[in-house]
């Protein structure tokens, strides 16, 4: 009976298709452990998602309530600002001749008896007297101070000339009183001025719950003279001081800022010196990885900030289309190594980690006596040389444009500490596994860094920023004849918080 190829296939099929073998006992235990850990991991993922969502909702709510201006349309914000300004202007005496408020020059508007509540008209008399006694503060060149204790709605109605409406709401208005005190500046001592204010308040006969100034600590004369505005809610009797600085639209100057940054990173290298006849550029290409860290800045002036922090970065390069000749195989004891030529350093990889398809004895033949003919293989997979650094920057930041969107220029140095390195084989599916290391690599390097920062104010304290950065090693990464200087491009983005 002949036994041809059909028979050999059938024979193996018959014998092995239903072949059974007991797997090692620990396999089920490992599978079970994995399945259980997956269950827990899934639960943890859901919990984390829920926590992140909750945190986002809370942060969003806080941000929304803390920074209402950020979410309102500019038009609305401006309108609100105008309303507030107008309201204040109607009750704070402006210097005479101020064309912006012709209708409220002096106390004429407030002195209108139609505007005064029935119980309040008598109490306003001393005010008019004071006004006259002072010779009309509106005519004075010096600063004048107006104190207002009134519902802003009155001013709106006053401006509109809707006196009729006000009168119809007399019952409502009886609870609201207005008081304007004009103080001559630079004449009396501060203490006397404060007493004058207190006296005027008492003389108006305002009930103690409404005339809050009588219950509040006396106003500092200095504050009065500095032009501080005292506003008060007539219903609650609360008064507050608003300094000019707080009402200023200018951005707050912060001494300390903290940034969290993350960036994709593209790294490559420059090669100098003897290359031993290799054209590294044919097989070496850039590596895409990432970088991230935190950084804090100390501002010494409005525009100048010194920055430092801690960053983690992965640099390196990709080797592809590697051609291996028989000369690249070396024996060391019983082991056979393959030398991968590259510009960064020497990489020796056990041949078994690179070559499975070729029977090992053939490789041994190549190394020992070249029983087989000389050959060259092109490696089907690519090799990644990766260097992991912890980096400490020392950067100087200069703010070129200081608006809601800042433009900064940064320059400085990084101290780069090599914390890990490896050579990885990367297959077509993108999976990598470690196959060796690069020798003769410096553990410490300096690099020069230049960046352009765009920083957008999300609120008083929080900024979002984008920072395209270029970094170049100042001393070579390797200690070979061929000097190699890695460089990288990154676009850091993140949030910064000012204190």
């Amino acid at each position: 009976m002949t036994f041809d190829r059909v028979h050999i296939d059938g024979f193996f099929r018959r014998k092995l298709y239903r072949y059974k073998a007991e797997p090692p006992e620990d396999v089920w235990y490992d599978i079970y452990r994995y399945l259980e850990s997956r269950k827990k991991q899934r639960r943890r993922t859901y919990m984390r998602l829920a926590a992140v969502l909750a945190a986002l909702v809370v942060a969003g709510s806080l941000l929304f309530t803390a920074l209402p201006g950020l979410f309102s349309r500019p038009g609305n914000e401006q309108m609100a600002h105008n309303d507030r300004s107008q309201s204040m202007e109607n009750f704070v005496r402006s210097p005479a001749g101020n064309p912006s408020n012709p209708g409220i020059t002096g106390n004429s508007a407030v002195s209108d008896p139609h505007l005064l509540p029935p119980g309040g008209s008598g109490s306003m008399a001393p005010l008019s007297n004071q006004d006259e006694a002072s010779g009309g503060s509106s005519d004075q060149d010096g600063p004048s101070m107006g104190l207002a204790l009134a519902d802003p709605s009155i001013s709106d109605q006053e401006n509109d000339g809707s006196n009729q409406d006000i009168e119809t709401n007399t019952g409502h208005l009886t609870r609201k009183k207005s008081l304007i005190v004009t103080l001559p500046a630079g004449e009396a001592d501060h203490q006397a001025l404060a007493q004058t204010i207190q006296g005027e308040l008492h003389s108006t006969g305002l009930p103690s719950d409404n005339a809050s100034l009588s219950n509040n600590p006396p106003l500092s004369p200095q504050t009065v003279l500095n032009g501080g505005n005292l506003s008060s809610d007539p219903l609650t009797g609360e008064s507050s001081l608003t300094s000019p600085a707080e009402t200023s639209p200018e951005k707050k100057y912060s001494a300390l800022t903290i940034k969290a940054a993350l960036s994709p990173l593209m790294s490559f290298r420059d090669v100098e010196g003897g290359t031993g006849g290799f054209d590294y550029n044919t097989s070496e290409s850039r590596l895409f990885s990432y970088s991230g860290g935190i950084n804090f800045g100390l501002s010494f002036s409005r525009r100048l900030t010194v920055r430092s922090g801690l960053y983690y970065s992965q640099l390196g390069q990709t080797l592809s289309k590697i051609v291996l000749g028989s000369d690249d195989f070396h024996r060391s004891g019983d082991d056979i190594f393959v030398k991968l030529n590259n510009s960064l350093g020497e990489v020796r990889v056990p041949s078994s980690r690179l070559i499975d398809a070729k029977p090992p004895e053939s490789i041994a033949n190549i190394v020992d006596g070249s029983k087989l003919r000389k050959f060259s293989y092109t490696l089907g997979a690519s090799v990644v040389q990766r260097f992991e650094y912890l980096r400490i920057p020392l950067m100087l930041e200069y703010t070129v444009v200081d608006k809601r969107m800042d433009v900064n220029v940064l320059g400085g140095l990084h101290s780069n500490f090599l914390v890990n390195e490896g050579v990885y084989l990367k297959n077509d599916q993108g999976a990598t596994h470690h196959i060796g290391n690069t020798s003769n690599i410096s553990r410490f390097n300096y690099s020069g860094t230049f960046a352009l920062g765009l920083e957008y104010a999300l609120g008083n304290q929080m900024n979002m920023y984008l920072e395209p950065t270029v970094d170049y090693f100042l001393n070579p990464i390797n200690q070979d004849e061929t000097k190699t200087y890695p460089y990288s491009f990154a676009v850091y983005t993140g949030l910064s918080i000012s204190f």
Partner: protein
Amino acid sequence: MPKPTDIVKACLRGDTRAQSRLYQMYADRLYGITLRYARNEDEAKDIFQEGFIKIFEKLKQYQNKGSLEGWMRKIIVNTALERIRRENKFMLVEDEAYMEYEQYKYEHILEELGQKDLLEMIRQLSPQYRVVFNLYAIEGYSHKEISEKLNISEGTSKSNLSRARQFLKAKIEQYYPVKISQVI
């Protein structure tokens, strides 16, 4: 004894006992497959473990159409192929001309070989020959299917199969030189 479909449903609910039951039902058959594809038992164990985890993870994709065992076999075979692709770094360039086959006249000697002997022979094949031989001769895939699975040409698949057979023949001669010479 519960039906495989009921076990699958229980597994999908995360029932650990059902998972264990499914494992016990099919472990030995599936492990036998991985032994044919792997170089050694350690690798077979890794492939088997990875493959079985995939089975549990993909169980909801099983539509109750066709045999459950056939579906699981495919996952195990694919896991083995992925593993071999991952580990196999050299793309060997094969000449596409494959050899004519010799006629062997020692079938009865082959019959004396045990399953473990055959398995050992297959394991000694290089990964690419082993995979092609397993897929074609044992699993019953066509060269077209193999070429698609391994991303090689049909010619390369045929060539690899031819060389695998040659190698196996040489191994058999090595194991039974006397008997073969007597027969021949």
